[in-house]
């Protein structure tokens, strides 16, 4: 656990001082929101399903953009080779990177969410904006969904970077695999906005949590095979 936290701290400090990923992600998300808003011409006839879809598409696109960076930073000055030299199991390296990526992506999502509320839901009527009824469950789903797509995104960003196609490869690898995250997260978020009871989306929530657990486990096992010889 301590080793995971050390890697997390390293990555987080690098980002904190260089400030490369965070502003990029933030501005990119804003632009996506703008494009969606212009394209859909949202007025007062808000459809919660569409709004939830817009949120998640924004999160996933901007999140993957940031993840693409997370391993290419390690490439510079061959930093990753030195990281591998440390007496730490590769699974821990993956888990540490996963943790730092989740935190960074979540932070930028937290900054985007209020703006999103401002842009899309400002004149929507009848949203249950109570703290326990809507906001906390909504944030909970954001956390779970983010863990879901970042777990595979972190894993495959290290793979994509080593292929000939590089950044092109990451969305190809990740998008089809995270379909369950998209289906469940968008479904649950729109159910929450519509003010449905918990039982209505409990099944989707189970699927989402299982997805997170399955793929964190699987990726941390397979990570050992992914970077077998540090050279390539």
């Amino acid at each position, binding site marked *: 656990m301590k080793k995971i936290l050390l890697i997390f701290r390293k990555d987080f400090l690098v980002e904190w001082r260089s400030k490369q990923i965070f502003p990029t992600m933030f501005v990119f998300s804003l632009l996506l929101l703008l494009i969606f808003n212009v394209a859909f011409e949202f007025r007062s006839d808000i459809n919660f399903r569409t709004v939830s879809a817009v949120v998640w598409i924004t999160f996933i696109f901007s999140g993957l953009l940031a993840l693409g960076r997370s391993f290419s930073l390690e490439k510079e000055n061959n930093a990753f080779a030195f990281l591998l030299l440390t007496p730490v199991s590769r699974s821990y390296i993956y888990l540490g990177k996963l943790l730092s990526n989740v935190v960074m992506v979540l932070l930028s999502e937290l900054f985007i969410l209020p703006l999103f509320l401002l842009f899309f839901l400002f004149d929507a009527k009848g949203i249950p904006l109570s703290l326990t009824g809507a906001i906390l469950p909504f944030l909970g789903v954001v956390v779970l969904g983010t863990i879901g797509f970042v777990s595979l995104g972190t894993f495959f960003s290290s793979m994509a970077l080593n292929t000939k196609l590089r950044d092109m490869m990451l969305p190809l690898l990740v998008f089809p695999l995270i379909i*369950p995250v998209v289906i469940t997260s968008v479904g649950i978020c729109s159910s929450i906005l519509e003010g449905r009871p918990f039982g209505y989306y409990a099944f989707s929530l189970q699927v989402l949590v299982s997805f997170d657990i*399955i793929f964190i486990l*699987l990726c941390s096992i397979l990570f050992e095979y992914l970077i077998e010889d540090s050279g390539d």
Partner: protein
Amino acid sequence: MRKILFFLTFALMVLATWMTLFYAPTEVVMGHVQRIFYFHMGTVWAATVAFTVVFVASIYYLVKETAKWDTLAYCSAEIGMLLLTLTIITGSIWAKPVWGTWWTWDPQLTTTFILWVLYAVYLVLRSGAGGRGKKARYSAIFAIIAYVDLPVVYVSARVKRGISPVVFGPGGGGIDPAMMHTLLVTLLGFTLLFVLLLGERRRIMNMENALYARGGRGG
């Protein structure tokens, strides 16, 4: 052995075609179009076998790191793609008169579509990965994750209600014995066809690799 397999497959496929067209009774509600169901099931079954072979061969490759497992996985994935494409085409032909649409996003179709995309990505990854060892390792890892992902896709897509028929298991209706015979022969025929194609594809692949190793063209 190869010749026996070839003639056996050929005979079974001819028999399956004959049974599909003449032996099986006409379905009461759907009529003659239902006959495509047998080949639909045959291809989807063989595709499932193919992708399971990819999954198992990929695990073996990661553990043993011998090239033959990688070759097996790759050849099986290629044939699986072919079979799955046929599944989707036959399914569409069937769906149009029965459901009134070529395509709908019900859980089975969604999962099939994602299955197709996943193995398309698998083939793209192979062509764009780089060196041979890296290509084999990366595609094996992707194949394993993709195979585990599929049930989750299916379960998550089931949040919406499906309309694909459930033939076996709970809720499945009774089936005429003659239809059952036809189905079994078709399934067996397509299984053998898959084995035959896999063997031939591997032979060609090994020849290519041998040529490549000798410095000729190919690889």
